[in-house]
């Protein structure tokens, strides 16, 4: 259920009444359905699974993950639930 990889939207277009996106994965191109991410723009990155864009890569990108790692060094059992859920 989870084979999804990120790719860059080159352009969007309509086909048979459905919003599609041409997505580039480091040189490999695929026609992907963007019905589930209607707001996506060319230049943004999307997570693609079974020919559909599932979500748009958040602005803060991978640096968020690395920030987590940095924060983990200061993991504190007293952090509130709110602090945890980002």
């Amino acid at each position: 259920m989870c084979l999804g990889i990120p790719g860059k939207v080159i352009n969007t277009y309509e086909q048979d009444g459905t919003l599609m996106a041409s997505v580039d994965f480091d040189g490999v191109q695929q026609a992907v359905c963007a019905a589930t991410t209607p707001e996506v723009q060319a230049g943004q990155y999307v997570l693609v699974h079974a020919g559909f864009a599932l979500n748009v890569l958040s602005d803060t990108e991978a640096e968020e993950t690395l920030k987590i790692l940095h924060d983990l060094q200061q993991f504190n059992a007293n952090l509130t639930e709110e602090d945890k859920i980002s």
Partner: protein
Amino acid sequence: MSESPKNLRDASLTKAIMAEIQRITTQPWNIMEICGGQTHAIMQYGLDQLLPPEITLIHGPGCPVCVTSLQAIEQGLQIAAQPDVVFTTFGDMLRVPGNKADLFTARSQGADVRVVYSPLDSLKIARENPGKQVVFFAIGFETTAPTIASTILSAQKTGITNFSILPANVLVPPAMHAILSNLANRVQGFLAAGHVCAVMGYHEYLPIAERYQIPIVVTGFEAVDLATGILMTVQQLEAGQHQVANAYPRFVTMEGNKVAQDMIYQVFEPVDRQWRGIGTIPLSGLGLRPEFASFDALSRFDLTQTVLRESPLCIAGKVLSGVAKPIDCPAFGRECTPALPLGAPMVSSEGACAAYYRYHRTRE
């Protein structure tokens, strides 16, 4: 902006996180992942070899191929055998055994069974073959649900009537409830499936974490993602915490993708569903809403009720819920191997039994 940056596969970073896990672990912990993709990645990178021996990863029923009910497979085989039917499915379903045949067998007997990469390909086949009935085997968790819902909406919008689905989608939260409320449950922490959560968000896990007092960490699929998710889970376990946390923020937010969720629930509604080897879990599947009932293959075709015969040797249910290990099964490695699987967890390359089969051999 970049895609999966190389450093998320970085070996030294992964090992550093693993070293941190080793440092803070003071007692044994059992952590389950319910995501076939995560199980596959763990196997591929050998990540559980890097974990301290106290941490046990239990591979939960996260592979939709493994948990699709025997009944659904038998129904699929019956539909595929009908004249003028094109039966379309994701590739890994072809080897899943029914009572005595699989879809490969059906194809060899003349059934038109085709592998598709996306449900939209199935719709395209329907459009190009108006004289045939095209059926899509709708399996998967919440990750494939919006794609299938979108395809049905597309079919409806463009007036395609020769397309239908065999509904078999399942939902993660009810499965977690079923596992955690089992008296023999050993699971103490969960890695939540990153791409399911990309669609659904993770607000649904808050009541689960609270009710069962168990930490749940949304985790991705690269080596660093997985190591980070495990680290965050162990940290909570060591500190006696039971929060929902997000180790995959680049694609997951608390709310998830609302457009996708609306699409799912426009077309589908929760129904009881049978999980192979486990049994019926209430409201754990997706069925078509009455407005879309015409897309249900089960009502389009006249199917006979088959007597279902699971192998008496296969203990898939116990394995999938983490109660038993694959090596506890009497048939493991003997009657049941990846080449001749008795049950679903041996069929799929990320089924718990197939994974163990490979591992077990390295350690000899």
